[in-house]
């Protein structure tokens, strides 16, 4: 027997963990057709029954007002899964039941999971699960997902529910006078349309029409009953007023508070650890400094603790490269293997440790519940900068890699706010740019290398802010204030290793898949372009790079960059930085026939070759910070915005801004005598 199961629930209820518990962590991630939202599916075998589990987005309600809600709603109504698992946070019963009522109304075959049972207990709540089950006429399973308690009972309940799916109906939710009569009237009109009433539950559709639900209205547009329906609706509006949606929402909460909770919930909230911690984390004076301190700790963790792993990878691949070049006689093949393949793989994987460490750190901050407070604390500032409080987390992620950062903007509801965040995100100096700063810094800035690197990060943030403000003021599309900030603050909890690793892998694998392949191919491209035409380049044991395609490319671009003091090598390196910023250092290394390490030899060579001066070096760093986002990011931007217009804009404004800033640095530097 095969059973199709959908997972649904509010955000923060432990849905991801339960999904992982059920599917053993093996998920197939795709996209909902026609949308940019991710679709996660998995399988679970239990007592001979194969369960196909689909994870629906975390939502508070089933309206037509956001993509997430529509996706969930359409899936339930059109795909008609055998069972819908409604995951309810037991420590937050009242609010979570709102969605449950809507699920019952949409005639989903619901199994309620009361998760975080332990948290509810610790808060002092006593919940009568049996009574809840009786009232709502659906099975209720209590679980503690973090300890895998209740999973077997859940699977059993799902199978049982699937068996009795056909022929059962959910209890009717009564809204009282005058709503119920009107709902019945409209439902009966709807039932005259055979096509519609087979597909959609009449009562549910009637309620949606009363709420002026856009999608529902569209459905009814082609129906023969349309006129009669419209007449009824207009009449109703005249009597009851325009905003039935809010009125019905209020009614639902009333039902929960008066008819359900008193029979099901006992006990009261006591002062919790969360309240204590929030006193400091949300403190007027210490809130932001604490955030900055944690942020710095995250950075240190990301770069300094992961360093030995990067070293290890570097060593491994250069050893492999040496073996390849000594063991293979054909020089072209040897070079391809050593510099191309191994160089390429090494070049990608060396970035893996910092990125994974960053995402691990972020996952810990997020799972502990702190990140929501950080967003809250930064919202004041974000708002004044024309950004939404929710833009905050994507910007944090951007310091690791812009690709998952752009994707993380999905949680921002208002499209204008979302696109603005996406446009400004590439200013966050991703980890790929750091080796460039280190290389140039140690080459030409000497003792001030550290200051140079810090200044790049700060420059990035400053520019991001300026651009956000600029775009808000000048581009009509962005006029207006960011949408209002509403965020639920979860209880603080100790992050579990499992969940943290799962989240880390989720984001890190994105980098690996998207950026990884592109970087690898990019390095191979550099190898090719720098080694061919083979004979011209490799003359008598020497490598004359100016004869290669790479050199020709560099010389071609050179004139445009001359005012900035960049020569053809820098030009070629920048060109490849477009493909992936990680390649810039490698390109320089190729020019000097060295391994792609950012430190030591390469920077000394760079310095002695006199290619860059302190001033032009700084300008180069700034240029790489600002100019065009790498291809992987551009790809992500296109996927998230769905528009060539914005993607091109993102690419172009970066170039222009980079040129201007670099020019300013060079001119200013020359003026004060650094030359």
């Amino acid at each position, binding site marked *: 027997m095969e059973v199709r199961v959908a997972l649904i629930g509010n955000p923060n209820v432990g849905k991801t963990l339960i999904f992982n518990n059920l599917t053993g962590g093996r998920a197939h991630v795709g996209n909902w057709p026609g949308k940019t939202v991710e679709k996660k599916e998995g399988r679970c075998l239990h007592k001979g029954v194969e369960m196909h589990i689909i994870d629906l987005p975390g939502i508070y309600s089933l309206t037509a007002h956001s993509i997430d809600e529509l996706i969930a709603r359409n899936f339930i109504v059109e795909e008609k899964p055998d069972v819908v698992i409604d995951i309810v946070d037991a420590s937050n019963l009242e609010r979570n039941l709102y969605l449950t009522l809507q699920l019952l109304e949409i005639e989903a075959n619901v199994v309620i999971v009361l998760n975080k049972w332990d948290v509810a207990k610790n808060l002092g709540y006593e919940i009568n699960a049996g009574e809840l089950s009786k009232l709502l006429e659906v099975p209720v399973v209590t679980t503690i997902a973090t300890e895998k308690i209740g999973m077997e009972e859940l699977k059993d309940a799902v199978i049982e529910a699937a068996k009795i799916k056909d022929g059962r109906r959910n209890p009717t939710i009564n809204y009282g006078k005058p709503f119920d009569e009107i709902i019945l009237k409209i439902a009966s009109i709807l039932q005259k349309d055979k096509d519609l009433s087979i597909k959609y539950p009449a009562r549910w559709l009637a309620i949606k029409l009363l709420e002026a639900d856009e999608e529902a209205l569209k459905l009814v547009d082609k129906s023969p009953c349309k006129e009669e329906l419209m007449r009824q609706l207009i009449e109703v509006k005249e009597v009851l007023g325009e905003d039935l949606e809010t009125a019905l929402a209020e009614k639902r909460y009333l039902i929960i508070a008066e008819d359900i909770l008193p029979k099901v919930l006992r006990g009261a909230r*006591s002062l919790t*650890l969360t*309240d*204590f*911690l*929030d*006193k*400091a*984390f949300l*403190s007027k004076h*210490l809130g932001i*400094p*604490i955030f*900055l*301190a*944690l942020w*710095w*700790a995250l950075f*240190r*963790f990301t770069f*300094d*603790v*992961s*360093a*030995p792993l990067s*070293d*290890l990878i570097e*060593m491994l691949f250069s050893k492999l490269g040496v073996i390849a070049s000594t063991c293979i006689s054909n020089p072209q093949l040897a070079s391809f293997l050593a510099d191309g393949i191994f160089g390429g793989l090494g070049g990608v994987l060396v970035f893996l440790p910092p990125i994974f460490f960053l995402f691990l750190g972020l996952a810990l901050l997020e799972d502990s519940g702190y990140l929501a407070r950080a967003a809250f604390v930064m919202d004041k500032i974000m708002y004044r900068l024309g950004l939404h409080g929710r833009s905050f987390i994507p910007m944090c992620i951007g310091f690791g890699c812009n690709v998952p950062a752009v994707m993380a903007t999905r949680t921002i509801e208002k499209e204008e706010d979302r696109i603005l965040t996406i446009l400004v995100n590439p200013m966050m100096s991703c980890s790929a740019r750091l080796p460039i700063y280190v290389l140039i810094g140690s080459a030409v800035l000497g*003792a*001030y290398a*550290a*200051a140079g690197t*810090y200044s790049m990060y700060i420059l990035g943030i400053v520019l991001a802010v300026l651009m956000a403000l600029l775009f808000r003021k000048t581009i009509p599309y962005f006029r207006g204030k960011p949408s209002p900030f509403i965020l639920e603050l979860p209880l603080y909890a100790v992050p579990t290793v499992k969940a943290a690793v799962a989240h880390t892998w989720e984001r890190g694998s994105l980098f690996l898949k998207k950026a990884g392949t592109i970087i690898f191919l990019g390095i191979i491209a550099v190898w090719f372009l720098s080694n061919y035409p083979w004979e011209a380049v490799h003359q008598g044991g020497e490598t004359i790079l100016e004869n290669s395609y790479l050199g020709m490319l560099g010389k071609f671009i050179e004139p445009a960059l001359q005012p900035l003091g960049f020569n053809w090598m820098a030009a070629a390196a920048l060109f490849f930085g477009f493909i992936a910023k990680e390649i810039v250092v490698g390109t320089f290394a190729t020019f000097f026939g060295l391994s792609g390490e950012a430190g030591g030899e390469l920077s000394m060579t760079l310095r002695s070759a006199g290619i860059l001066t302190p001033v032009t070096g700084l300008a180069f760093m700034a240029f790489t910070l600002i100019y065009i986002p790498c291809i992987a990011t551009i790809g992500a931007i296109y996927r998230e915005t769905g528009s060539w217009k914005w993607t091109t804009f993102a690419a172009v404004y970066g170039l222009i801004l980079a040129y201007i800033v670099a020019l300013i640095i060079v001119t200013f530097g020359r003026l004060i005598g650094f030359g």
Partner: protein
Amino acid sequence: MKQKAEEKHIVTYAIILGFIYTVFGAVEFTLGIYNLFTPIDNASFLGVAPADVFGGFAALVIGASYLSAMSLLKGVRESLGFILVGMLLSAVYGVIYLLIVCADGFRALLASLEGEAWTWEWLMRGSAGTGFLRPEIWLFFISLPLAYLTLRTLRQSDKT
């Protein structure tokens, strides 16, 4: 009353810790800023507190959090939260600096495998500034008893 006395002890402990963190934080921060403009090689105060702008800032924040516990004396119960957060930050930094020192050691090991000479330099120098001597590491250990005491107080009050 016993609880009041215990609370007083906790606050005193926190204030002392807070003061120490603040002092070191100020030193690290100032040295760091100075270092940016007139770089000194391996700058550090007493060989213990390195020049570190952001690290110094962080230590100042930790100090401020502990010091804010003073309002506990005025009866604001939730100020225990400042101590808790101070402890969390102490732990975060203590552990991270420790990890960094270990990472440095690991890198030294890798370098020696590559043929470079082995040094013990990473113990006292390196990415964390002064290696094992970094104050935040020791202050973390010193803050552990405070953590125990505070959590015990919290747990007791829950039983009422």
